[in-house]
């Protein structure tokens, strides 16, 4: 990442923490203010969400899920970003943020109902301050900005995290949302998980310029950082959030990472990318890297590590058991139940006809 040019902006508390290559400086790392327990917990969460990802992939391969989109390799962003926020801050995800949802306390087995074809919205976004997974690329970004504008109007100190991939930055909704955020000085953090691939289209064919630098054109700062360093992601989101809470407005973080798995289980990456590229990135694995660092600091003993592994196994078994036992909502309720708050008469009649047609079958 040595060739990255950083945007220099005044009023930017994020940038001084990073080298010009987007690496968290040793000094900034020493000033994070995280206890040894908190630092270990970041590792624990990365291990848990990675194990959940693997279990979901296994479940799909065994026919228990219709589809799965792995986030293998992106765990540092998921854990680092969510850990840097307050519970009242809303997150507006796209569709690969299963790990973020877990960090927010959403039951992974509930989430899997989406991929088992049981539900289009298997958790209560208001309970977890975690908006629905959004499948139309970039569709959720203006929602995040609208929510953040509303926070400003309500004189609230909460901030909003809008997360998306590199592909989303090609969409009009991304541009429109960034522009609105700048104009309204919305307390929103844009977090691009640049994993280098939008299905089969590589970054170089997605955009000819820098994503981070575009922020300047919208009137706020942006930075490209190493997205495989959980502490770097934490530090960037934490500072950007503090700035937004204090009325500083939006911030764009482009976190460089790599999609180690396929786009989804329907994809075949051997058709479009090389094994050597994968091998290069596997040496930057965020979980192994952070473990090495924790161990070098004497903060991760073998017993703790083993206990985390056991917890991950238990989680995986519980996910498997729960999703296989998940019962379907009755069809009438599943199809008609949540469409309207005030269902029109004719709509109710259609539901009744539908339900009575099922009774006859």
């Amino acid at each position, binding site marked *: 990442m040595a060739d990255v040019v950083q945007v220099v902006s005044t009023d930017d508390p994020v940038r001084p923490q990073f080298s010009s290559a987007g690496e968290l400086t040793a000094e900034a790392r020493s000033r994070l203010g995280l206890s040894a327990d908190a630092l270990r917990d970041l590792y624990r969460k990365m291990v848990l969400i990675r194990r959940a990802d693997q279990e979901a992939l296994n479940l799909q391969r065994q026919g228990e899920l219709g589809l799965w989109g792995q986030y293998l390799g992106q765990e540092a962003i998921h854990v680092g970003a969510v850990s840097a926020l307050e519970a009242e801050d809303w997150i507006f995800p796209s569709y690969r943020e299963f790990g973020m949802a877990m960090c927010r306390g959403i039951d992974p087995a509930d989430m899997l109902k989406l991929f088992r074809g049981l539900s289009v919205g298997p958790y*209560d976004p208001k309970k977890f301050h975690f908006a629905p997974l959004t499948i139309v690329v970039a569709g959720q970004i*203006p929602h995040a900005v609208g929510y953040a504008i509303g926070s400003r109007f*309500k004189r609230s100190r909460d901030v909003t995290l809008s997360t998306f991939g590199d592909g989303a930055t090609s969409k*009009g*909704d991304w541009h*429109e949302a960034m522009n609105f955020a700048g104009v309204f000085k919305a307390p929103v953090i844009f977090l691009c998980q640049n994993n280098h691939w939008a299905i089969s289209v590589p970054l170089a064919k997605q955009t000819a310029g820098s994503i981070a630098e575009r922020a300047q054109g919208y009137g706020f700062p942006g930075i490209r950082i190493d997205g495989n360093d959980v502490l770097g992601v934490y530090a960037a989101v934490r500072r950007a959030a503090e700035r937004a809470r204090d009325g500083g407005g939006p911030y764009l973080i482009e976190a460089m990472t790599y999609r180690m798995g396929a786009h989804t289980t329907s994809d075949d990456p051997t058709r479009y990318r090389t094994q050597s590229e994968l091998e290069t990135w596997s040496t930057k694995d965020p979980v192994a890297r952070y473990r090495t660092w924790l161990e070098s600091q004497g903060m991760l003993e073998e017993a703790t590590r083993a206990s985390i592994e056991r917890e991950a196994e238990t989680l995986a078994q519980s996910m498997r058991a729960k999703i296989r036992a998940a019962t379907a909502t009755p069809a009438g309720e599943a199809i008609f139940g*949540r469409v309207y*708050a005030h269902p*029109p008469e004719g709509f109710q009649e259609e539901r009744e006809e539908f339900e009575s047609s099922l009774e006859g079958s």
Partner: protein
Amino acid sequence: MEAVTMARALNLSLGDALANDQEVLIFGEDVGALGGVFRITDGLQKTFGDERVFDTPLAESAIVGIAIGLAIRGFKPVPEIQFDGFIYPAFDQIVSQLAKYRNRSGISMPVTIRVPFGGHIGAVEHHSESPEAYFAHTAGLKVVTPATPGDAYALLQAAIADPDPVIFFEPKARYYVKEEIDPGRKVPIGKARIAHEGSSVTVIAYGPTVSLALDAAKAAEAENIALEVIDLRSLSPLDMPTILESLRKTHRAIVVHEAPVFGGFGAEIAARIADEGFDLLAAPVTRLGAPDTPYPPARYEKLYLPDVDRILEEVDVALAYG
């Protein structure tokens, strides 16, 4: 109350909504200091401040997109899309997000999108369209359109109070017709009204074609033909009971809208009548609308859109059946 134009009735309705509910927000292109290109939001920013009534950048998709976020935050957004033909950039946010958000999340979307629509204003391209069928086709949305100042006031109140997303089409050619309005009168979403009673033929209209149908009814009276004019007011939900009740008297129906007939909303009405009222019919249901072409240059719009003569011709055809 003295007679007011539909434009003024809408303005009063928005003002009352802002005054009665702190969560109501109005935003869009030019709705602030200018008061909207049709002045529907005239004076509202001055009265309620620039956090309740505000201009946005020129981007329809984000206008609807932020409305969704604001609704999650607890607001009742009332965005304006400046013209019918400019709603398409927001189509994805309306159809894939707004309409389906509650189904996906359980979070209600009390969003009212106001859209001036229809022709007869001598405008350039994209300013005279009737895109209602796209939205009526989308589950999760409610689609309404008033034809009179009184209904404009009341229906807008109902739309803003409704917990579901409402596309509120304003017949812009009727903005300047005047009528006395009663702000206390309620018009629920989903209830049509009989705009003119008659027993010969039912003319089903909405928005800008209601006054056309009433003109046709007046002209038909001279020939002792009594047209019954239904003003639908709401396309989705559709008030089939009122339509079928009228057909029990007339046994004949003509649907009139400005949109092209092909795949237009009239097709839904005609099909529903055939499904639910086939035995009532003495003649085929006729659809009257625009040809299956893009909206023409303004000089041709009078020829392109339905008019009184074409309604009367269809009335004659309907009456010629047994």
